[in-house]
């Protein structure tokens, strides 16, 4: 049981980071972005490409990578944020002006398939790994073994979430973002430039998604379909936590990660992706505003 909980928290770290961007786009840009999973995929592949160019340096302790990899993660996040802004400029910006509001969702579904196949075109369909070094799992509690890489992932995810919390509560931009998230018209009246906030959403959402993707690459593997396979659990996390709530997304990601991992004790692991979906479905049926969502 302990091992399943540990594995759930590690998966939850990826899901939480992905769900933050998803909940922000859902709430501020007003559409379900099905191409969000591909931001994780591209983040992971950008890191893969960069790791091939930049040297890792000597490995740190029992980790499978060195200091250089931190730089790789940062650069991958920057590139992915750039990609998110580019797709927004190319497609969503135009569709936002059209009268068909849901066109955005169709476009994002199309963008998701296209981006996934761009990955196949550039890097090929085979799974990739950041390091061929085998990471040995150490016991941390009775019956619970984790690798140093996995601890790194969970700790860095926690640091990022604290950072995001400080950004949202202490900085002007963060407060403006929350204001737009609460009420777009009211925020505009107070002089907040909504276009800047839209860009900020893509930057924050895109870079966190990229890091989530790299985490998944470190703890599982990198592949063209990774983002698509994660999009449903991420939506489940965002909805479970309550759409628009960043803290809800973090909580939802952890709950879904734990649920999917622990469920494999009783259920065939092949059905793992359906577990998060089933939870989301129950939530929509019984309590659609989510755990930490606004009451409307």
């Amino acid at each position: 049981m302990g091992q399943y909980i540990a594995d759930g928290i590690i998966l939850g770290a990826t899901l939480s980071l992905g769900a933050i961007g998803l909940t922000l786009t859902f709430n501020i840009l007003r559409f379900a972005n099905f191409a969000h999973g591909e931001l994780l995929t591209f983040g992971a592949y950008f890191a893969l490409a960069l790791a091939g160019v930049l040297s890792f340096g000597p490995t740190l302790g029992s980790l499978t990578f060195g200091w250089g990899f931190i730089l790789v993660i940062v650069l991958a996040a920057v590139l992915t944020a750039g990609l998110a802004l580019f797709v927004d400029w190319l497609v969503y910006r135009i569709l936002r002006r059209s009268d068909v509001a849901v066109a955005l969702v169709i476009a994002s579904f199309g963008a998701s398939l296209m981006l996934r196949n761009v990955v196949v075109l550039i890097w090929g369909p085979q799974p990739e790994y950041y390091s061929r070094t085998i990471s040995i799992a150490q016991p941390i509690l009775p019956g619970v073994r984790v690798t140093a890489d996995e601890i790194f992932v969970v700790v860095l995810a926690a640091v990022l979430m604290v950072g995001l919390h400080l950004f949202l509560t202490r900085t002007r931009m963060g407060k403006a973002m929350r204001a737009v998230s609460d009420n777009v018209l009211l925020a505009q009246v107070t002089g907040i430039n909504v276009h800047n906030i839209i860009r900020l959403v893509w930057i924050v959402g895109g870079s966190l998604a990229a890091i989530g993707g790299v985490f998944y690459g470190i703890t599982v593997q990198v592949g063209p379909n990774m983002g698509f396979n994660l999009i449903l659990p991420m939506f489940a996390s965002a909805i479970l936590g309550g759409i628009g709530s960043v803290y809800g997304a973090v909580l939802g990601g952890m709950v879904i990660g734990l649920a999917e991992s622990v469920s494999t004790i009783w259920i065939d692991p092949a059905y793992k992706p359906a577990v998060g979906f089933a939870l989301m479905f129950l939530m929509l049926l019984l309590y659609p505003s989510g755990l930490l969502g606004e009451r409307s």
Partner: protein
Amino acid sequence: MTGLASYLVFFLIQALVYSVVALGLNLQWGYTGLFNIGVAGFFLVGGYTFAILSGPAYSTHLGGFGLPFVVGLGGAILASALVAWVVGLPTLRLREDYLAIATIGIAVTLQLVALNARGLTGGSRGAESIPRPFEHFTHTSLASNIVFLVLMVVVVLLIYYALEAMVRSPWGRVLKAIREDEAAASSLGKSPFRFRLQSFVIGSAIMGLGGALNASFIGFIAPTDFLPILTFEIWAMLIVGGSGNNRGAILGSVLVWALWTGTGSLTQAVLPSGLQVKGGAVQIILIGLVLMVMLVLRPRGLIGEEAVVSREAELGGEGRG
């Protein structure tokens, strides 16, 4: 020459199977504004239900009821309608994107079931030897295909006229009213939720019928036939042809299917075998581009929805608009 003719027959049958599905989607999206991106899931339910009810006895999984063709189709329609009802119940009261998430979720889940519930579906090996109707009367495969083509034309025409009658009826006008202005429609005493659920269930039932016809035509189904790419193709067909227009849905199905098979044969002919996977990727990117360009430049499609103006509005509407 017969080679070309038989290819054309084969092509048209498949295009018409997809146009059945696109017609179902058109009722949901074109007329009601419902965002279903789990098309592949309803297509799957229809296909497997038909295989179980009308297919031969399988040694490893459920089947062997040997029911008549029409009963198999009816079962497929009922099963996909039931799935749609379960999905629609919690999600159709919420913002439209929730239906999108729920439908893609159910499609992924159903695909997992098809892949893993071996006793029910045959797992990754799929279900084979699914029968076609009138098999005893046709002796060559071309004759069998021509009979099936005639059947498909009849089915598509039946669905087309039924849908046209429905969307022009008071019921159809309520659907459009809800799509355009939910608050106004509900202020006139129409329950948006009930009408949406009806439209969603009927549309999904038509998709299930398409899935059953597909299973019968191909004779073999496997979980890999029901990937999200299928949903994407159907959407491309509807958007290209023109959502909100049933003739557009049929036209789009033929055109996009021609583009899809055309680029498929082209990449197969041009690319060396080592690059075939990448060729498939190029094919998907191409269809995606067509969809995007349509969405941006011509969101109404090739033949979009006809503008309907009531007589009263035309008389008194001078100076407006």
